[in-house]
């Protein structure tokens, strides 16, 4: 009896799925060129005003719902769409930290007749490249933010992790005192962004300044502040003299500074650095805590990502890449950055 | 009939560090007989059976099957030699359906290896049920049927295995009604005629004399005596088992009855067949409630105790109607119950004896939200003394106690609650003779103190020995009331079976 019921319900379910799906797609775009990596921009960038009247339906997909940088990206994306592309219908959602949700959402977009997707897609893999290629073949335009696209069909707007870290490393190589003893927060292992940043630090800071000793280092799962706090607390037990906190992002550096302050150590003489230029990092620089950071401008990243998507939807470009430059933040220019965060509503 | 020994033991000993469970046990079991093993708890009967069926191995001595020396390392190996056992502790899989359970390990296989032919298996299970005259719906799960049904199925499952040569049955009738016991004995006789040897462990004297060809008595791990059943009398057997004379198995003392403490009018409980009951119990009386399985005795008790919902009717305490909708209500009125399945409803096995005794009495033993440890210790110690509970200490885990001591703990906790009415549902099931006597003694004592006792039991001798009056139930209705003088086993049985006399 139960089995018959199950069969009937399954049949009804399948029937309703068939009834609801759209038939056919709007112009499907065949992609002849099989480029393996996106090119740097050469052609002049078209201005947003040109696309003011474009009508489209897009989905904005973040990595998860709680990561601060993701939030900055999504907030900025929404702002850009509302201000510069008022005829665009959009929906914001997230992957819940599970990359396998990408294919579900892409399928849904194709079925529901979306024109484009702005996605913070995380690491590349053979599988995900295929997903984007399939979706694009169905007519969906894809623009990735905060990630490099290597599938040959999607545009991307990203900050060069290696480049940013190199900038930071060079600055720290300049200002770290002689024979400094530092601790090193390496971010999560296996994460491409983290690994690129670590490589840049190794090459341009530690190799360039062989007198600087890394007395303790470790990975920090999920870039999480609480994990960095635990590490730093234990390191403070072991080492009395810590001259510098080298970190591949702001949050972990701030964790280190907090711990040292609570342990009663003098942090004004500690050299610390991070990357991303998030609100808490900027506030700390202003307050004399964090020494320096590199702005990963999510405003620009989202803006360009949306622009590329609109260009793709309008048929003007096939797929392109935009690299966002990092900007060194020091006590001299930090007030500008704080103002930007205030404008975004992230700092009240 | 000089038959060969099917099974022979020579100097079997089983020693655990510090304890000797079996001490040089030697005797023989003739082929094709029903050989009964008698002895108190701890006599070593179960240990011996476990050695035969492969669960344990002896530390010394030899066992011979059909004249050949054997030693089994596993139940499976014993099974291959034709030995099967029905355990005292019913182990079953609650969510398995009856048909799957009956055919467990004997399912019909498909030609493709690893697959089971379910239709054939199910048909075989149904055929088995039909052959035995059992009317269970084979799609019911084990969880949905009662303990006695499970016992019947367990027996059916074991008996239907045609490869069995030697069948060991450990207390197989503890949950069965007399009619079912009779049917079981019929089946045993059929097996005997087929040449199967049966080893039977039981406490029930009357059953043993019905079925036994030979009886072996064990005590304290030692073999005391083996002889044909005809050579024993109940008294000689008990003497050998216990090592002392028990003259008064039922220590009944005369008590002056008081007023009606509990009265029940037009009582029926929801979801059961119990309806229209009218009965009463006076202070100091021990009133029995007799009936077969399914007659509704336990359901009545549960309704009185607040465990099940009432459909209609009145419960009167000291003449005044009371509203009992939950167990706390019942306890507050002074109605308490020692349930049938003491492991399941009677005690918290993993907690100490002291905690178990204190549990329903915490209000009495507490100061505000805190437990008054000193008061608790005092009362628990008193209960230990009064009920003669045997345990290493009050902090011992309840589940490690023997059946008799567990039952004493259950009684202790209710005694402490100073009840007006005490309902006892099968209080001496699975308890050895010595402990049973103590429980009867307690019952008498409590009656003397003016407690009204309602006794539910399946052992007719208990009614005749302990009860002042006895009600009989049949199919959810009360159909008889017998005074102490009128009580005979036949008359009680007749009423329980539905007839009138």
């Amino acid at each position, binding site marked *: 009896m139960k089995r018959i019921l199950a069969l009937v319900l399954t049949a009804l379910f399948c029937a309703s799925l068939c009834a609801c799906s759209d038939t056919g797609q709007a112009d499907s775009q065949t992609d002849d060129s099989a480029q393996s990596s996106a090119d740097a921009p050469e052609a002049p960038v078209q201005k947003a005003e040109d696309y003011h009247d474009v009508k489209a339906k897009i989905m904005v997909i973040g990595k998860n*719902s*709680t990561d601060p940088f*993701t*939030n900055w990206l999504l907030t900025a994306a929404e702002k850009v769409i509302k201000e510069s592309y008022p005829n665009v219908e959009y929906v914001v959602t997230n992957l819940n930290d599970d990359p396998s949700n990408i294919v579900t959402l892409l399928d849904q977009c194709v079925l529901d007749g979306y024109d484009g997707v702005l996605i913070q897609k995380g690491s590349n893999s053979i599988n995900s490249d295929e997903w984007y290629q399939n979706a694009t073949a169905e007519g969906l335009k894809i623009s990735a933010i905060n990630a490099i696209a290597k599938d040959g069909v999607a545009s991307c707007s990203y900050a060069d992790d290696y480049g940013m870290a190199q900038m930071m490393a060079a600055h720290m190589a300049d200002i770290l005192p002689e024979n400094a003893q530092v601790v090193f927060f390496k971010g999560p*292992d296996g994460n491409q962004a983290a690994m690129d940043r670590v490589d840049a630090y190794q090459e341009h800071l530690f190799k360039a300044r062989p007198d600087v000793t890394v007395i*303790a*280092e*470790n*990975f920090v*799962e999920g870039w*999480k*502040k*609480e994990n960095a*706090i*635990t590490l730093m*607390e*234990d390191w403070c*037990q*072991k080492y009395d003299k810590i001259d510098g906190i080298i970190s591949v992002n702001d949050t972990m550096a701030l964790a280190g500074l*907090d711990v040292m302050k*609570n342990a009663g150590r003098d942090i004004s003489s500690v050299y610390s650095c991070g990357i991303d230029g998030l*609100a*808490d990092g900027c*506030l700390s620089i202003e307050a004399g805590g964090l020494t320096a950071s590199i702005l990963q401008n999510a405003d620009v990243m989202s803006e360009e990502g949306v622009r590329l998507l609109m260009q793709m939807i309008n048929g003007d470009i096939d797929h392109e890449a935009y690299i966002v430059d990092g900007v060194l933040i020091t006590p001299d220019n930090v007030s500008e950055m704080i103002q930007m965060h205030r404008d975004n509503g992230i700092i*009240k | 009939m000089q038959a060969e020994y099917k099974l022979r033991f020579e100097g079997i000993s089983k020693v*655990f*560090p*510090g*304890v*000797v*469970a079996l001490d040089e046990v030697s005797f023989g079991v003739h082929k094709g007989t029903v050989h009964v093993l008698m002895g108190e*708890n*701890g006599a*070593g009967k179960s*240990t011996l059976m476990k050695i035969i069926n492969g*669960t344990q191995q002896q530390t010394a001595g030899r066992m011979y099957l059909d004249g050949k020396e054997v030693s089994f390392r596993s139940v499976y190996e014993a099974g291959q030699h034709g030995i099967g056992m029905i355990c005292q502790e019913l182990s079953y899989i609650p969510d398995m359906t009856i048909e799957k359970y009956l055919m467990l390990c004997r399912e019909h296989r498909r030609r493709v290896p690893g697959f089971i032919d379910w239709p054939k298996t199910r048909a075989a299970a149904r055929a088995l049920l039909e052959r035995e005259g059992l009317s269970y719906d084979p799609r019911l799960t084990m969880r949905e049927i009662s303990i006695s049904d499970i016992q019947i199925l367990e027996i059916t499952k074991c008996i239907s295995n045609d490869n069995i040569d030697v069948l060991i049955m450990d207390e197989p009738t503890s949950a069965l009604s007399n009619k079912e016991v009779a049917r079981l004995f019929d089946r045993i006789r059929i097996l005997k005629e087929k040449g199967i040897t049966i080893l039977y462990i039981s406490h029930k004297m009357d059953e043993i004399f019905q079925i036994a060809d030979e009886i072996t008595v064990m005590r*304290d*791990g030692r073999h005391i005596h083996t002889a044909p059943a005809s050579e024993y009398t109940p008294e000689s057997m008990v003497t050998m088992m216990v090592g002392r004379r028990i003259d008064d198995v039922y220590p009944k003392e005369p008590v002056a009855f008081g007023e009606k403490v509990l009265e029940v009018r037009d009582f029926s409980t929801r979801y059961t067949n119990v309806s229209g009951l009218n009965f009463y119990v006076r202070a100091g009386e021990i009133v029995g409630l007799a009936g077969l399985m399914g007659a509704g005795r336990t359901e009545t008790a549960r309704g009185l105790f607040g*465990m099940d919902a009432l459909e209609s009717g009145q419960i009167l305490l000291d003449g005044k109607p009371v509203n009992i909708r*939950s*167990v*706390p209500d019942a*306890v507050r009125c002074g109605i308490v*119950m020692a*349930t049938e399945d003491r492991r*399941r*409803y009677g005690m*918290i*096995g*993993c*907690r100490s004896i002291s*905690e178990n005794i*204190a*549990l*329903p009495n*915490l209000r009495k033993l507490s100061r505000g*939200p*805190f*437990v008054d440890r000193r008061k608790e210790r005092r009362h628990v110690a008193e209960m230990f003394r009064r009920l003669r509970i045997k345990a290493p200490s009050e902090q011992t885990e309840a589940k490690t106690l023997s059946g008799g001591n567990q039952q004493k703990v259950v009684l202790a*906790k209710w005694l402490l609650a100073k009840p007006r009415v005490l309902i006892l549902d099968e209080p001496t099931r699975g308890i050895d003779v010595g402990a049973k006597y103590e429980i009867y003694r307690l019952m008498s004592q409590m009656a003397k103190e003016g407690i009204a006792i309602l006794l539910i039991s399946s052992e007719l001798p208990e009614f005749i020995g302990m009860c002042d009056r006895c009600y009989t139930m049949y199919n959810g209705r009360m159909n008889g009331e017998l005074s102490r003088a009128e009580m005979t086993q036949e008359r009680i049985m007749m009423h329980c079976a539905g007839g009138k006399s």
Partner: protein
Amino acid sequence: MEKRFTDIRGLFSQAMRRYGIYLILLLIVFAGSVLSPVFLTSKNIMSVGRQVSVTGILAFAETILIIGGNVDLSLGSQVALSGMISINTYLGTGSAVLAFASAIAVCVCCSLFNAFAITKLQMPGFVATMSMDFIARGAVYVYCKGTPIYQVGDYGKISSTYLFGVVPLPVVFLLGVAVLAAVILRQTCLGRNIYAVGGNAEAAFASGISVSRTKFKAFAISGLFTGIAAVIQMARLNTGMPDTANGYHGDAIAAAVIGGASFTGGAGTAAGTLVGAFVVGFISNILNLKGISIYVQQIIKGILIIIAVSVDIAGKNRKIRQVAREKKEPVEPREGPA
């Protein structure tokens, strides 16, 4: 014939059963002092105490639930949700007391809703609390739009202050919760009821205990503890992080189980849980002092937890066998027939 079990082997296994977990703690402390010179200093121990304070307090919440036959998989999300609300309360009122009160109120609500789902809606605890986990996590996002609260004023002082200049405030809270849990479990009628309901709910019912009322009270206590943990967590971060405490219920349950709480219900102690929390904390601390990669640490932590729990269970089985010998009736150990 009845022999009392008095030889050395018996005493040893009795000791193992009751004090096994303390033995493990001692072994770890010994290993730590050998492997690192700074391990056995009061500063380090206090630091570890602060590190385990949040998951430790959550472990006490789980302990009370596990003893009562329940579990709560939503504690981490409750910490995040109530923590964010608590920070805003503090920013609005300037009162630390109100900060605690608001966190506790939110957690108690979530926990009571869990209790309602389990008792009245008859949902299995696992399912009900897992659903609450999703709900609470989602609620955090809706509440703060995923944006952290960067400026929290003096909130962080709840974590960074020292009592008598030596004991970090979080450790004071941890010990306070430990004492409270111990008193509840050992000295109160409610504690007895929780043990009974967890050990055998049907028998507790047949003894006149209200099973559902007991569960409600147990969940309420869990909510109280979780609220306290939430404030300490946010104070430690010195930021309102909405994505914090992910999976903390796992660490909490691990500490409780190492400390002797059993999922069969009716077993567990406050002292054991405190030891369990420190066992996990010390392992992490020692491995950090030795500079071992956190991913390797996770593997080692998992293995050591398995060892700790197995030793504990083996001690209990030995006890079952010992008692069985005295009864002269062989009994199968808990893991089933050999």
